[in-house]
């Protein structure tokens, strides 16, 4: 296991800086999508109280920006590829060869920034003068929020991988699946878990609204793993990589 970790670190070290930049840029793209969806929500005054409206459009904007991000990354790659081809033996080509690295990192960027936006104010309140659960309010608000946020980070990461893979291999149904499942999962929270529900055991069934989330997370996770999100770092891929394919076709190191 440590050996594997060492191999991964070793394989990533040449591209780690670029991956950080990809991470940051994807976070920024998520931010812009959030800005647009908030603007949209803000602009349509009559529906401002209807969260569902803002929610649906927010998901659409997010996935649209994922698409834009993908297109931009692809454009940047075309430029970089030529350089890397010259460097065929060089390690930098790991990025081009392992598209799923970029997919993974950008999905992770989406997830982290969205998780930060969801959770950071809750965390800040946690230190504050107030105490949760004093008036019979649910005491597990924080832990619920934290777990759900983690789920969403994971989901975003996996959505990124599936989404990019779908675009890469022109299996657009995967893109649609990502969009739909994102919509579904986000809307599940709607009316789902109000704080006051948790206070009364009789309403704990509301938890089951979130029931599907966890198995879904796991299944998407497995799926994304099949798409070789992590396995791409392994040296076996590097071994049979042999540089960029001559026709410039993307190498996709999966069994999928």
């Amino acid at each position, binding site marked *: 296991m440590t050996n594997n970790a060492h191999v991964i670190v070793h394989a990533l070290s040449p591209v780690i800086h670029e991956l*950080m930049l990809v991470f940051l840029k994807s976070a920024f793209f998520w931010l812009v999508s959030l800005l647009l969806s908030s603007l949209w929500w803000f602009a349509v005054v009559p529906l401002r109280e209807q969260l569902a409206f803002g929610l649906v459009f927010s998901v659409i904007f997010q996935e649209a920006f994922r698409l834009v991000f993908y297109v931009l990354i692809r454009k940047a790659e075309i430029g970089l590829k030529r350089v890397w081809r010259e460097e065929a033996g060089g390690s930098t080509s790991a990025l081009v060869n392992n598209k799923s690295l970029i997919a993974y990192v950008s999905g992770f960027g989406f997830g982290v920034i*969205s998780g930060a936006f969801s959770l950071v104010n809750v965390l800040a309140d946690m230190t504050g003068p107030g105490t949760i659960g004093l008036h019979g309010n649910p005491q597990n608000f924080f832990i619920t929020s934290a777990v759900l946020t983690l789920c*969403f980070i994971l989901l975003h990461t996996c959505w990124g991988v599936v989404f990019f893979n779908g675009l890469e291999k022109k299996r657009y149904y995967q893109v649609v699946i990502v969009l739909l499942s994102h919509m579904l999962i986000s809307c599940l929270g709607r009316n789902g878990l109000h704080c006051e529900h948790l206070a009364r055991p009789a309403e704990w069934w509301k938890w089951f609204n979130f029931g599907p989330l966890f198995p879904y997370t796991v299944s998407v996770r497995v799926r994304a793993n099949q798409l070789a999100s992590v396995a791409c770092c392994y040296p076996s891929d590097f071994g049979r990589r042999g540089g960029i394919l001559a026709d410039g076709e993307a190498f996709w190191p999966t069994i999928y």
Partner: protein
Amino acid sequence: MDTQAQNQGFEVQEDDIEVAIRQPGQDSGRTTADPESGEVVPHHRQGQTSPPHRLPADGTLLDQGEHTTQVDQSHGQSSSEDEADDDDSENEIVHGAKHVIMLFIPVILCMLVVVTTISSIGFYTKRDGYLIYTPFSENTDSNAKRIRNVLGNTFIMLGVVVVMTTVLILLYKYKCYKVIHGWLIMASLLLLFLFSYVYLGEVLRNYNVPMDYITVILIMWNFGIVGLICIHWKGPLHLQQAYLIMISALMGLIFIKYLPDWTLWFVLAAISIWDLVAVLCPKGPLRILVETAQERNEPIFPALIYSSTMVWVVTTVEPDAGNDSGTSNIKANNMELVPLGETTVTPEESTVTESSPRQDNGGFTERNGDHEARQRRRDEVARREVQQRSCRDEQGEPATRVSVQQSDEPKERGVKLGLGDFVFYSVLVGKASSYGDWNTTIACFVAILIGLSFTLILLAIFRKALPALPVSITFGLVFYFSTREIIAPFMELCSVNQVYI
């Protein structure tokens, strides 16, 4: 008031903002000798293919015929010069990621220091008094009057900045180095002693830690003196960088504390516009500063600029001529990191190197990475001179590949960022965090970093000194106001409903 005035003066200088990557190609237009005297002057390219050979295109170092020969030989049979140039620039972008991150780290650190301080120590968000530069109060009844006052404050601040910058440029132009150094030393003295003393006191008070005066004096004395030595004379690179980050953070905190709210936002906008003007206008003061420094082969004052990172010492060895030339020059690249302070190529040395007959160093194909790795010091150039001589003696005749010497030289490469950038970035983020909404802080944080990386991309494209404030500050301001007014309510609605997007 005196202290504030001084401090202001320092600030004013600090907003001398630019990111400068120097290009050998550009340098050749302006200066005659390529290797630089100081430590802060970077070389943009890592002597790979063309730049060293194209450098002497102005004929000062080589005659034209030799120049073209070199280009042909080094690019071999396949790639034309233009193509090589393209590849080179792309390659720079590839290697640029590391530099971007290396520049991000200090910026992130500075912003983190300010944000942590703002959100944990109440002193810096408490209003008590204003600077004399902002005489008009914002607490007025009517909005019209408030706007007028804010604009008045902003113009006074900007005026001070402009005047101080101009004074600095004039002093520099007429070589009053002593005055400038005195000025800078006074300013950093203030920051290092007075403001850090205040800071220490507030931190101790905040966490209710008692400390006796003897200890405080001891700490402050050591901190300040080491800082002065590191910034103005020499010291370990990381220590110097740490001090620069610290004084920027202190400066930013002072701004956050003493500038009224709206004045601060307007000042940020005005400063970034001024930055644009000062760096890009043909007669802009900062541009004059940079160009004069380049002409004189001097580093810009270390107290004003965070000189990015490390010296990149590149050892390029031309591989066998039989190789396909497309890959050759990149493959043979063998880079080592050396702390900035350690490789100082003085002008004399560089002239020696430059004037040595170029065709004589052919056949120098020994891979010298290993034994040079342990000793890259001031005598580097001279030593290599010796090696070259010995090689020449052995080989006896000029060989076919002649590009080794230039690319063998220690190349400094890095990005420089004015301290003013650090100050205003952290002012923006710190001010954003002082309202207690962390989403705003994160948004500004990401926006500023993205703006910075965008500026660096522009830098790679335009290859001249660029203002680092406008893009970042614009992004930061846009995201500050939009997050505060639009995103925050939306996110609040989401989080109340426990909806995750």
